[in-house]
């Protein structure tokens, strides 16, 4: 993500809530402030329909991270 932003491409990462702390630690150590959207853990055992619903539900927050705020 940091690499793509360094190349001039605004990026938003999508991760499960499991990753919240790890993301914070990585961001601190790299000195970056990545745009992240978290979806509820777990993901591995979900059905296709459940995953599609998660995508539908989180589409707006994800796109919001790619446009200017306010």
């Amino acid at each position, binding site marked *: 993500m940091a690499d793509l932003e360094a*190349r001039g*491409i605004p990026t938003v*990462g999508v991760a499960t809530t499991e990753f919240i702390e790890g993301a914070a630690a990585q961001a601190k150590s790299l*000195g970056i402030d990545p745009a992240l959207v978290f979806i509820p853990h777990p*993901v591995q055992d979900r059905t296709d329909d459940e995953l599609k619903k998660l995508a539908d539900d989180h589409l707006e927050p994800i796109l919001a991270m790619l446009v200017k705020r306010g």
Partner: protein
Amino acid sequence: MTVLLDPTSERSPTIRPRLPRPEKLDGLTIGILDIAKSRGDVFLHRLGERIGERGIAVKHYAKPTNTRVAPLPLRQQIAAEVDLVIEGLSD
């Protein structure tokens, strides 16, 4: 861990700020990068469909393996072909 002294006037925070975002998505291309963790593909594919329904161009990319950083040629290709990226699905 290395500690360096800040050579700047220190008027900005130490965290590198995010890139400025565009006003609107119209006319832009969104790249969707699958980092190859399981089940992410279904999620990301659905995102791509829904974004496409809005008339916004979408391109899909995938890392060859989850365990390593995306290869340089892939990153260069993405940077050349899209305006914005959604990357997932980390857990």
